[in-house]
């Protein structure tokens, strides 16, 4: 893989003064307008609707024409005093922490491995990663569901090779803990490639000279990794971990599909399916909007430090 030319593009950095012709000053805004409009319609309006209705009573009665009444923070208070909401929230956060950490650690491990091994081995590993990454979510889920099928699934068959173990007929999706473990394994399997290939791309940009200098100074492989390589690629590791956390917290499709494959019921809910069930399922749009806002606030809190760093660099 070649790396892109990193020569910084020159910004048109003369101050926006009245000396510049009007056409030139307005051009960047014209270029931005279509994208901005699309974002306003597809994101801005729904976001506004959501914020507004999280403060209103908006249930089935309002669906049938009754005007929604302002209820202030009632929706939020109802949620935050509901033990079921808390149980879903805690489950989701634990699920996110385990899955995101496993993904990033495995991803870094794979990237270091790609760097260390011979070329054919590296390419084999990269192609395998790409195959897993490229698979559409629904196809991933149908294959895994087939592999864990209780009667003819490969997993139960293979486990039964172990002497004294007979797993044929074991349903992995009945026990909620086992259900979430399955979901976590599938999501980790599918997300590691993105992390591994991104970290590998970053590793190839670490200059060899720095490492040679460290090697001359007698640094061991482990010291080199901890003191030189990881700090250099730290910005990328931070954003990868953050993205994984955000994606794993809001996970919806995989849980929805696993539920469809045979474990319906709110014991198997994480935040995504919980909010969806409350809104579209039960028609409690006000409450669902408030729950979605809580998830959003939580996510923004997570990413706040990163965004602040980014803004500093942009100055």
């Amino acid at each position, binding site marked *: *893989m070649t790396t*892109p030319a990193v*020569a910084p*593009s020159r*910004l*048109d950095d*003369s101050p*926006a003064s009245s000396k510049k012709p009007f056409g030139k000053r307005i*051009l*960047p805004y014209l*270029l*931005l307008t*279509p*994208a*901005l409009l*699309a*974002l306003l319609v*597809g*994101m801005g*309006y*729904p976001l506004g609707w*959501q914020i507004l209705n999280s403060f209103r009573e908006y249930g089935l009665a309002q669906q049938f024409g009754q005007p929604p009444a302002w209820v202030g923070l009632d929706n939020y208070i109802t949620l935050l005093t509901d033990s079921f909401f808390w149980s879903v929230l805690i489950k989701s956060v634990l699920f996110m922490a385990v899955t995101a950490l496993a993904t990033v650690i495995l991803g870094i491990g*794979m990237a270091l*491995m790609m760097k*260390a091994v011979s070329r054919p081995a590296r390419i084999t*590993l990269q192609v395998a*990663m*790409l195959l*897993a990454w*490229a698979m*559409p979510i*629904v196809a991933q889920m*149908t*294959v895994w569901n*087939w592999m864990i*099928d209780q009667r*003819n699934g490969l997993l139960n*068959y293979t486990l039964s090779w172990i002497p004294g173990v007979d797993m*044929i007929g074991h349903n992995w999706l009945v026990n909620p803990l086992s259900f979430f473990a399955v979901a976590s394994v599938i999501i980790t399997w599918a997300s590691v490639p993105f992390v591994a*290939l*991104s970290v590998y791309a*970053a590793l190839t*940009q670490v200059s060899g000279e720095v490492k040679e200098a460290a090697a001359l100074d007698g640094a061991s492989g482990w010291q080199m990794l901890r003191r030189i390589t990881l700090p250099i690629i730290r910005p*990328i590791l931070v*954003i990868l971990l*953050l993205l994984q956390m*955000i994606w794993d917290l*809001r996970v919806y*499709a995989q849980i929805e599909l696993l539920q469809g*494959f045979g474990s319906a019921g709110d014991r198997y809910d994480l*935040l*995504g399916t919980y909010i*969806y069930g409350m809104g579209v399922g039960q028609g409690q749009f006000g409450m669902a909007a408030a729950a979605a806002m809580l*998830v*959003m606030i939580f*996510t923004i809190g997570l*990413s706040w430090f990163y*965004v602040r760093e*980014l803004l500093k660099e*942009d100055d």
Partner: protein
Amino acid sequence: MNTKTSTGKWIGSTAAILIALLWAFPVYWMVNSSFQTTTTINALTPTWFPFPGGTMANYKAVLDPSTGFGTALRMSVMITVLSLAVCIVFAFLASLAISRFKFRGRKSFVLAIILIQMLPAEAMFIAQYKMIAELNLLNTVIGISIIYIATVIPFTTWMLRGFVAGVPADLEEAAMVDGCTRFGAFMRVTFPLLAPGLVASAVYAFIQVWNEFALASVLLTEDASETLPLWLRDFAQPSAYGPIPWGQVMAGSVLVAIPVMIFFLIVQGRMTQGMVGGAVKG
């Protein structure tokens, strides 16, 4: 010393290949199962290889008009083409604005692009569902495309920005010194250099939209308006009439997955560059 490192490398390479096989195994298993007959797939001992004894019967069954595969394919194509065309043009213009100009509000726009990617899209479903329902656009190509375009624009803009920034503005200026207009310089110098980046971003957006499941399951609720991922979900659902036809389900999965996976393999090198580039350039 030398033998020691080469032995180490050899062990590492073997381990890497084993991990590779493990990681790619579900993909292999999907393909393998899709060629099995009903008898071999329901046998208590799995069949590890598709040949000899493989069959195309599962594919024939999936492609039969009664399964609705064709309808779903048409729906997926229409939604993807519309979303992609609009998204790429809009994102490209926006990426030019933020990488070639300095203007008031630029920083806010970049920040907005980053923030939108941080927002949990799944948390917005309820609001997006209500909006599309009120516009009477549930189960339509236009309705879901409106949301897809807005969802894909931020990342596409971000990726394209990395590519545009990779083409030095000096090149354009040189062409302008040689008598090109700014627009002419852009079209003759920068645009050809950007073409690979544009293709990579377009394929990225294509994969996002083509594979999207969650929002589609919310906005497309009728059988007739299902996209391929929704079709596959229904096809793989346990039914009251008998056991799941795993061979057919895997054949369906192959048909949904393989075209995208081929596209993906072709452009992925550039995609990772764009992502890393975007991140490095802040």
